[in-house]
């Protein structure tokens, strides 16, 4: 199989990730639930992982790195815990349902929501954001990069706007964590939400919520933490205030190794290699008749995610042909980003998304281009 669905999850991971999960399954206990070595080893793994993530995202304090089960949970905690009815919030049509659905839920309870359209450059327009700010605006919730087109928002610019207007910036970094540099302080982020299994190449079931200094979402999930058990409430201190119940320590052991790999191999190298493959693919397919590429596919800064259609062929049909005849795994449909597809008038057809990892090869990219060429000829 040629796996080109890395925007959904990384399939090829550093070997050390799988080995760490295997070792943890046989050796670690439950963090904070005892002073024996199995439990302490679990706590040590969590602290090391928090520390490396804090360093990677320039959080400033490992205690403000909260573990979740995925980016969706991180976004739910941040959005539902930092906004309330009566507040105004700005978001974009680029967003995934992990952003939109918590916002719609709050909207049904009285949140005022502005959804800005996608600019010609495939991302959010700073001037439009500024125009949308109202006296009751409390936050901007935005993706760092589209999970469909790969276009990247100007988070430095949006962060400046937030600083100037005293707004909280909640960032969905699902497609950029582990690929593009993220500096929480410089970007003025109140909350950084991402999964551990995409660009970071850790195991599924791991997610990260990093919080800015002084940012504390209202706690929605309560339960055991291993500390102060007679208290009726959760601890008020981070990170445990937001980590009720047993954590996915086996997965976090893998995420720890994934973070070490990112640091040692180098995020810049990961980005450059995966983008080289994406650009080779773009060059190859844009020359094919009948191919439509979406977003600003020639932007200097983008992530290795490319969405296309071949004439009016249903994306599901094309994706299935690619897999059954050529062994190429892609993602069809609307990618949980309904507003983006409405914007691009592809709600019916969907798009076929090709997303690349630095573990992919040029030969695999060439095979994908050849497969599309053959299918294009057949469908004439």
């Amino acid at each position, binding site marked *: 199989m040629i796996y080109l669905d890395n925007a959904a999850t990384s399939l090829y991971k550093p070997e050390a990730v799988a080995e760490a999960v295997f070792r943890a399954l046989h050796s670690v206990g439950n963090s904070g639930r005892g002073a024996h070595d199995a439990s302490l080893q679990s706590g040590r793994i*969590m602290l090391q992982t*928090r520390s490396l993530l804090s360093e990677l995202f320039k959080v400033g304090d*490992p205690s403000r790195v909260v573990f979740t089960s995925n980016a969706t949970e991180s976004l739910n905690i941040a959005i539902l815990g930092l906004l309330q009815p009566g507040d105004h919030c700005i978001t974009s049509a680029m967003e995934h349902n992990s952003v939109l659905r918590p916002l719609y839920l709050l909207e049904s309870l009285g949140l005022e929501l502005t959804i800005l359209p996608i600019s010609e450059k495939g991302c959010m327009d700073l001037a439009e954001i500024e125009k949308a700010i109202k006296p009751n605006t409390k936050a901007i919730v935005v993706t760092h990069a589209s999970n469909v087109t790969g276009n990247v928002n100007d988070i430095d610019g949006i962060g400046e706007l937030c600083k100037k207007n005293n707004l909280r910036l909640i960032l969905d970094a699902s497609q950029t964590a582990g690929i593009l540099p993220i500096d929480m302080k410089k970007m003025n982020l109140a909350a950084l939400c991402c999964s551990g299994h995409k660009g970071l190449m850790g195991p599924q079931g791991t997610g990260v919520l990093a919080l800015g200094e002084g940012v504390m979402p209202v706690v929605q999930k309560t339960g055991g933490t291993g500390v102060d058990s*007679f208290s009726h409430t959760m601890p008020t201190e*981070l990170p445990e205030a937001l980590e009720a119940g047993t954590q996915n320590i086996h997965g976090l052991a893998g995420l720890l190794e994934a973070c070490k790999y990112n640091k040692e191999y180098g995020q810049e190298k990961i980005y450059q290699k995966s983008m080289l493959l994406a650009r080779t693919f773009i060059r190859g397919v844009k020359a094919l008749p009948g191919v439509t590429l979406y977003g600003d596919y020639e932007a200097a800064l983008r992530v290795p995610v490319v969405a296309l259609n071949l004439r009016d062929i249903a994306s599901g049909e094309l994706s299935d042909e690619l897999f059954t005849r050529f062994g190429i795994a892609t993602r069809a449909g609307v990618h949980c980003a309904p507003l983006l597809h409405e914007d691009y008038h592809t709600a019916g057809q969907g798009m076929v998304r090709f997303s690349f990892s630095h573990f992919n090869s040029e030969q695999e990219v060439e095979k994908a281009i050849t497969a599309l060429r053959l299918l294009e000829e057949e469908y004439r």
Partner: protein
Amino acid sequence: MRPKELQCIITFHTTTEAMQLEQAAKTVGFGGRIIPVPREITAGCGLAWRDSIDARAALIDMMMEQKLSYDKIVELII
């Protein structure tokens, strides 16, 4: 059973704080270790750092220097 003696006990708000102190104390070379929080301090669960009473001042210095958070420092015969 080990004979009881006066010890320096540090308690924490969270397990993360306990792990941070353990990491720092081991790096510096303190001889203490993490224990279940003694029932004389709280009947709830949690972890504490136990060290010799002579280490108390140096532990406080290290925690201040490294900005490590904790709940309480007590001296206890355990």
